[in-house]
Structure formats: structure tokens, C-alpha cells
């Protein structure tokens, strides 16, 4: 364990089977390199990232389900996205901040018999911050004062930036407790996910900042110091003295926890670059998301973070790409009327329709047009794929599913596609 504060031991009653499972999952694995299977068997943390709308949440959930079903691992899927997508994907309502086990009944209903366990949790920013304060506060009084501070309530509940840090913090905390063989994390869309990578470092910088020391200097001595005077003057004019005093009070309260915070956020940063952590970039083959995914992969490389795989999602079926299909579609469209005449009797014989020729011709034209339309999209996808600028160890392709994936069976169907 990278860091184990005394407090992380508080759940000392971790069941022994978990530890046994852990040894299996993390030991020098003989799993084949170059497969999602291998990644999930080897790594302890898998971070699914990528642009929005590409099926990242579903992919993360599918990977987690597969690891639970096939590897017999105890797996947690943690969504850090503000929207309740994971709950949708797992067909569960109202999973909250606490980890929640997906019941065996749910698996049975999907015709599955998992060897392991699947747990799910969603990140509640406010609740996670409160937990962190309770853990880090030196005494009950500071704890209560911080929790009641209006500034704290705003930071913890409303503002975007605090979300990124607490997500990583929570991941760290769960990992440090050692209750799971594998934690699969879903992240906000790419550019936000970059914030999310930087969040631990930013938090560490913030709490060790010299400016922060200035701010918690007692008010009367501020205006004496030549170096800091302009800063206070401006801050006073913008924010008002009263608000500034609130801020000071808040940070003076926080002061008792600085060291703990800096240490923890550094540990969180270390965990992300640990060998046991890997990143899986999910994208579709559309131009805009794919460029974002590439950008993200490059950022991972420049931060020396491990790119485990790229998953290309919602790829249109192969039959849309053949040149034969295009030729057939052209002739269907050009000869629709003539074909309709010849097809009339057999179509009528096949049952349903009265075999009206105009109708058959319209159907043929629609079929041809629709094929050509989708072929255009499919060709673009193939072109984009060949232009992909990063070469990961694992490049998985998931076909377009014509129905939504919203249950365990669907997740397994998707999982099987990325498995090999």
C-alpha cells in the first residue's frame, strides 16, 4: 500500500477471502499482454477516460462486470461524473456515495453466475468532502466549525473544481482500505479529466502556497508588510473586508489540517502514476471525439501515466464498407421502378403487403439511400481509424449495438467484445 494512515485501518474486519483474491489479482500475472482481460487481471485501478458521449461510463461498467464475472474478483465501479449515468447503465436507482453491492439476483436475472462480486458507487462531492474533514480534523471542535463554515459548504457542494480533487481523494481512500481487487473509475469528459489528473498536484500546491500564509496572517499586521500590502488592498476592494475575514477564518481553521492535506494529495498523485494504475481511453471513430482522445493519450504519455488501452466504441458494422454493397445500392436506386415490377408478385406472395409497385419502388429507394448514407459514415470511420496517431498496446473495437445497453446482460454483451 502506497500510504496507509492509521485511519485507513479502521475497517479492520475486511473479509479474508478478499485478501486471498487480491494476491491472485496483483501477483506477477501470467495473463497475456495486449488484452483487456490481462489489464483487468493485473491492475488494481483502471481509469476510463475520454471525450463525452462515447460510452465511457458503459464501457467502464462493462469492464467491471466482466472482471467480476470472469475473474472472480471483488470489483468496484466508481463513477465520478456529476450526472447519474452509472445508475442508468447498471439499471440501478439511487446508488449513492456508499458502495453498494449489485445483488446476485440481478446477475441471475441476466442469466449470469458471477464468480466474484460487483460493487458500485457514485461520487457525492459534498458527502465525500465531509468525510474527508471528519477524517482529517484534529479535534471535534475544529471539525464542527469547519463543517458549519458557510465558505466550506460552498466549496464542498457547489463548485466545479472541488469535484476533481475529491474524486481522486475518494479513489485513494477506497484503494487504501484494500477492500477491492479492482477499482474501475469512470471520469468526466476529457478536458475535465485533465483537471482531474492535475487536481492532487493543484491541491498540494495550494496548501503549501505562500499566498495562503499571507491570507491567514492576522488582519492588523497585513497592511504593515510592504510585500503583501498591494495584494490585500486589491483583495479588499474586490471581495470586501468582511468576506476576506470569512476566508481567513476558514483557512485558519483549515490550517490544522494542512500537513495532512498536502501529504494526502501527494499520495493521491503517486497512486495515479503507480504501476498498478492504468488508463483506458474510450472514443468513437468520429473526428472530433477521436482528436480529443488522441490529445488525452498524448497528455498521459507526457505525464508518464500508463495508457493501457484504447477502446473504439459504437463502430458501424463491416457490411457497410464493401464496394459491392455500394454498387448494389446504386442499381437498386436507379432501377427501382423496373425492379418493383418484377418483384411485385413474389413480394405479394411473401405475405404482408398488397404488392403495390409504387410502394415497392419507394422501399427500394429508401433502402438504397439509407445504405449509402450509413456507408458514408462507415467509410469516414475507417479513414479516421487509419489516421489514429497513437499506438496503444491494446486497441479494442466495439461494434454499434442497435439497442441501448442498460442492464447487466447488455454490459456483458459489450464486455465480451472488448475482452480479447
Amino acid at each position, binding site marked *: 500500500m502506497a500510504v496507509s494512515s492509521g485511519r485507513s485501518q479502521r475497517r479492520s474486519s475486511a473479509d479474508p477471502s478478499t485478501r486471498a483474491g487480491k494476491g491472485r489479482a496483483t501477483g506477477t500475472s501470467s495473463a497475456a499482454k495486449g488484452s483487456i482481460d490481462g489489464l483487468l487481471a493485473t491492475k488494481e485501478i483502471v481509469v476510463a477516460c475520454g471525450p463525452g458521449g462515447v460510452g465511457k461510463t458503459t464501457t467502464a461498467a462493462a469492464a467491471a462486470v466482466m472482471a467480476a464475472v470472469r475473474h472472480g474478483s471483488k470489483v468496484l465501479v466508481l463513477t465520478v461524473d456529476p450526472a447519474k449515468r452509472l445508475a442508468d447503465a447498471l439499471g440501478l436507482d439511487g446508488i449513492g456515495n456508499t458502495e453498494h453491492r449489485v445483488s446476485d439476483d440481478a446477475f441471475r436475472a441476466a442469466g449470469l453466475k458471477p464468480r466474484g462480486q460487483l460493487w458500485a458507487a457514485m461520487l457525492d462531492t459534498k458527502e465525500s468532502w465531509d468525510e474527508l474533514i471528519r477524517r482529517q480534523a484534529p479535534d471535534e471542535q475544529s471539525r464542527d466549525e469547519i463543517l458549519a463554515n458557510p465558505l466550506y459548504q460552498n466549496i464542498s457542494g457547489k463548485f466545479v473544481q472541488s469535484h476533481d480533487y475529491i474524486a481522486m481523494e475518494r479513489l485513494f481512500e477506497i484503494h487504501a482500505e484494500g477492500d477491492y481487487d479492482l477499482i474501475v473509475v469512470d471520469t468526466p469528459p476529457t478536458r475535465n479529466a485533465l483537471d482531474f489528473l492535475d487536481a492532487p498536484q493543484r491541491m498540494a500546491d495550494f496548501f503549501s502556497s505562500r499566498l495562503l500564509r499571507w491570507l491567514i496572517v492576522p488582519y492588523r499586521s497585513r497592511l504593515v508588510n510592504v510585500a503583501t500590502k498591494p495584494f490585500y488592498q486589491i483583495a479588499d476592494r474586490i471581495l470586501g473586508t*468582511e468576506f476576506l475575514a470569512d476566508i481567513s477564518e476558514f483557512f485558519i481553521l483549515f490550517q490544522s489540517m494542512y500537513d495532512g492535506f498536502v501529504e494526502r494529495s501527494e499520495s493521491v498523485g503517486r497512486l495515479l502514476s503507480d504501476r498498478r494504475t492504468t488508463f483506458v481511453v474510450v472514443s468513437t471513430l468520429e473526428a472530433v471525439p477521436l482528436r480529443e482522445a488522441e490529445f488525452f493519450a498524448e497528455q498521459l504519455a507526457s505525464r508518464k501515466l500508463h495508457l493501457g488501452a484504447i477502446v473504439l466504441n459504437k463502430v458501424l458494422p463491416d457490411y457497410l464498407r464493401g464496394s459491392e454493397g455500394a454498387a448494389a445500392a446504386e442499381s437498386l436506386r436507379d432501377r427501382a421502378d423496373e425492379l418493383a415490377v418484377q418483384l411485385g408478385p413474389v413480394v405479394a406472395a411473401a405475405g404482408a403487403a398488397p404488392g403495390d409497385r409504387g410502394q415497392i419502388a419507394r422501399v427500394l429507394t429508401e433502402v438504397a439511400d439509407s445504405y449509402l448514407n450509413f456507408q458514408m459514415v462507415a467509410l469516414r470511420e475507417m479513414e479516421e481509424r487509419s489516421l489514429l496517431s497513437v499506438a496503444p498496446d491494446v486497441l479494442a473495437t466495439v461494434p454499434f449495438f442497435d439497442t441501448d445497453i442498460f442492464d447487466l446482460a447488455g454490459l456483458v454483451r459489450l464486455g465480451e467484445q472488448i475482452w480479447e
Partner: protein
Amino acid sequence: MTGAQAPSSPLVDLKLVFVTGKGGVGKTTVASALALLASLRGKRVLICEVDAKGDVAGFYEAPPTGFREREILPGLFAMTMDTEASLREYLKLQLRIPVVGRIGPLAKAFDFVATAAPGVREILTVGKLCYEARERHFDLVVVDAPASGHIIGQLAAPQAINDLVKVGLIRSQTDWMLKILSDPHSTGLVAVCTPEEMPVNETIELARRVREETTVQLSAVVVNRVLPELFGRQEEAVFHALGEPEPLGLLNELVNANAGPLLDAARLAVTMRRTRTTHLEVLRRGIDESVPMLYLPYLFTRSHGLRTTRQVAASLGEELGY
């Protein structure tokens, strides 16, 4: 902020429009198209990118933009939000502090203040936008806003700051911002969605949170990438019959090729559309009746670039009755 909505002005007659949506639904495309449409109708328009991905200019085939707005098409200006530059401008304009460049490393001080005083980043963004709208430098400011998960924090920032800061300059600033944001004839929010399960759920959730947590009005829901209906009821029966062995065999013979994949593709298109229709019904039920829904077709030929922006602008214009 409960119950039915007050009627809001037509989209392009507003002064400030935030366009949001779940990632990947075409939020930037719709924002770009709306700005283009308004400019083609003779308005002086600013499109501002807040997400800072730096690609909104690409939707007009223009080079990347910065904080200082630039006219990229006649009557259409573009800028990229930069909270630090916004602070600089604010200090210069509002506080008349010309020496800003010299207070040590401004960037660091700013970063610090922004992190220490929550909502500063958000307020500088919303403040700059409200400022542009109030000063009437533009008839319409279109904001390519953060994704739906993050927009609430931004739109609620002035109110949150207002609750925290009782007096001082910031307080008087948030007061006028709130006035603009709360006026349904000035400000509106457009939620972009696709007829898919997750985006629909997220849009309904967004609508609820906008109503409960902000003072901004949801002006429209834009449903993007709506697939065409291939067949009417009778045509669908013909289509099914065509897929039977005998008709398909004959068809293959007549065109001297395997038409199977063509029917497969059409079947895929029909199923896709059908699932999407179900999601659309859920969406319509989940959104207040007074909020108009605008439908944009799926574009097969191109997925981005000015050509796409023009096509979407045209469709949007039709939906708005122009």
C-alpha cells in the same frame, strides 16, 4: 422558481443564451449554428467559448480565437473565455487599477484567489458574459457553455456569491448579474440533446436542476441527430416481405449482387430510429410543456466544419419558423 415557466422571448431575440448539453451531443455545433443564424438575420452576435477547447473557430473554418473578440464572419464575432484575462479586464474597467500587471506574478495570485474564494472563476466567466450583454456591444451573446454536469455551478455562482458576500463591490456586481440572468427576456438556456437514453436522462435532470438551483430560464431543448423515418406502416410491411428468402433471392438475381447487407443496413436504421423515438417520448414527458423542442436531422454527409454549421443553422431556422 417552481410551477410553470413564465413565457420567454424567441431564442434569437434574447441577449444572452447559454448552450449546454451532455458531452458529445453536438453542443458546440448547435451554439455555432445559432450564432450564425442570428448573424444572418442581421444581428451583431458574439459567440463565446467557455469550455476552452479552442475549437469553436473551427466550426467557422476560422483560425483559433482568444479573449479579445474577433469578427470571423460578417456580424459574427468569436472569443474564448480566459478567466485570468477577464479578471485583468475587470480590474482595469471597474476598479481603475492600471498597475495590475505589476502586482507580482498575477497569474499565481489569481490562481490563489480563484481557488481560495470559491466561485471566483465562475463569476468572472458569467460576469464577463453579462457585461457584454448589458453593455449591448452585441445584440446577442451565445455561450458555448460547459457540459450539463457543470453548467449549474456556473449559472448558480452569482447567487452563491451573493449569499456569501454581504457587502462590497462584488455584492453590487452580482446584483446586476442576477438581474440579467433572471430576466427571461434577456437570458436563456438551451439544452442540446440527442434521442439516446443517457442524454435524455441527463437533459431531464438538467431541466430540474436549472429550475431548482438557478434563476435562469430553460428556453428550448434542441434535439440533435434525429434520424429520418424510412418507411410508413405499409412500406414497412413491404420491406419485411422483401427480406423473405424468395423475394431476396430474386432481388439478388436482378441486381446481380448480394442485396442482403442493404436490407441489414435498413433494418439497423429502422431499429435505431425506433429506439430513438421511445427516448424522444420520454424527453417530451420529462420537460415542462412550455419549453419548445427543436429537432435537427442527423447529418450523414459531413460531421463538422462550416458546411455542417450552415446546414444546422438552416434547420434551426426552419424549426424556429424563419
